[in-house]
């Protein structure tokens, strides 16, 4: 989903006209999946586009707190995990699963703060739908015990979140990045409720390059599919 979002959002940014009306808002979402969950809060500045001003593009900061319990993280670098590490093509390249090793992070906890972009469309008076994605930022989090598994052999190790986040499409991404597909229903003038599907990349790094084959590696990624709810508050 991330590459589609990226292409779409880059296209939309080029269409933004700064003179259009500014609509700030704040979103709070809680999402959960199998033994993992997130809480995220985002502040958006939206520009309304088009004659009817139904299309919006927004930018803003988003903080996502991710927590999990005994989650598997797999070999992250595209150069090992995928057949191609060329930007965008990486998304369509083969998954080199024979190169994947597993890092089971016992108590993952990541706080990521990223700049994000959003595209939304007003549907009627009360409904709104859109997508958003994190672009760049940083992460902090808990160092956790972890179990590394390669070819059936298991090792005890420690891992911590990768500190720098950058959207580069697919498995080229670095760090922890959030993206959402959302539907919103306006309850009152300023308050809306949201239903969200979140796709969250969380990345942990071991103290040493614990994976040796096919090349040394210390980065491991969990791709979390999460469903959640939230609220949105319009600031004007």
């Amino acid at each position: 989903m991330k590459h589609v979002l990226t292409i779409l959002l880059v296209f939309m940014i080029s269409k933004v006209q700064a003179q259009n009306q500014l609509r700030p808002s704040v979103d709070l979402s809680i999402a959960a999946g199998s033994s993992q969950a997130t809480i995220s809060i985002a502040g958006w500045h939206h520009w309304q586009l088009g004659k009817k001003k139904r299309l919006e593009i927004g930018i803003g900061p988003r903080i996502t707190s991710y927590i999990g319990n005994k989650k598997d993280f797999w070999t992250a670098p595209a150069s090992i995990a995928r057949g191609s590490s060329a930007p965008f093509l990486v998304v369509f390249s083969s998954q080199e699963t024979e190169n994947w090793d597993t890092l089971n992070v016992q108590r993952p906890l990541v706080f990521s703060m990223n700049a994000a972009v959003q595209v939304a469309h007003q549907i009627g008076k009360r409904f709104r739908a859109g997508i958003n994605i994190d672009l760049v930022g940083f992460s902090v989090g808990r160092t956790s015990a972890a179990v590394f598994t390669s070819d059936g052999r298991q090792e005890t190790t420690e891992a911590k979140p990768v500190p720098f986040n950058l959207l580069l499409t697919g498995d080229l991404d670095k760090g922890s990045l959030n993206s959402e597909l959302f539907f919103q229903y306006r309850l009152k003038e300023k308050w809306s409720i949201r239903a969200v599907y979140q796709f969250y990349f969380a990345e942990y790094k071991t103290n040493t390059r614990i994976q040796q084959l096919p090349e040394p590696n210390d980065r491991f990624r969990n791709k979390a599919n999460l469903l959640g709810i939230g609220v949105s508050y319009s600031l004007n």
Partner: protein
Amino acid sequence: MKSTLLWVLFTFLFISCSKEKETASDTSNDIIPANSVELYGGDFVSAAHPTSGKVRIVSAQGKWYLILKNFSTDPGPDLKLYLASNQAAAQFVNLGNLKSTNGQQVYAISGMPDPKEFPYVLIWCQQFSVLFGVARLS
């Protein structure tokens, strides 16, 4: 205030999830296999928590078993039984969740690992990487 409440609820949900992993299996059916032959044995010594008892690795009818006798350790979350290369579990074979914190227990070992490579039996809290007790096989 609302965000604080959400965090408390959030944290509570996850802490309560880890409860199910605490040691609580029925070991009343753990009977030492008949005609078993002892291959290796050792005594537990305490590490981070008081641990005592004996460990034996036996073979019977072409299968291998690890037996804990007169065993006792403290309760803890996510306790595992490892055959390990050292006391830090640098490399290990996971024999599964510790069935009970006391009494006799029998664990099947699939594909007996080389005891020269894995000479330690660990009572190991996997979630927090804490060694409860250890026995050296000889």
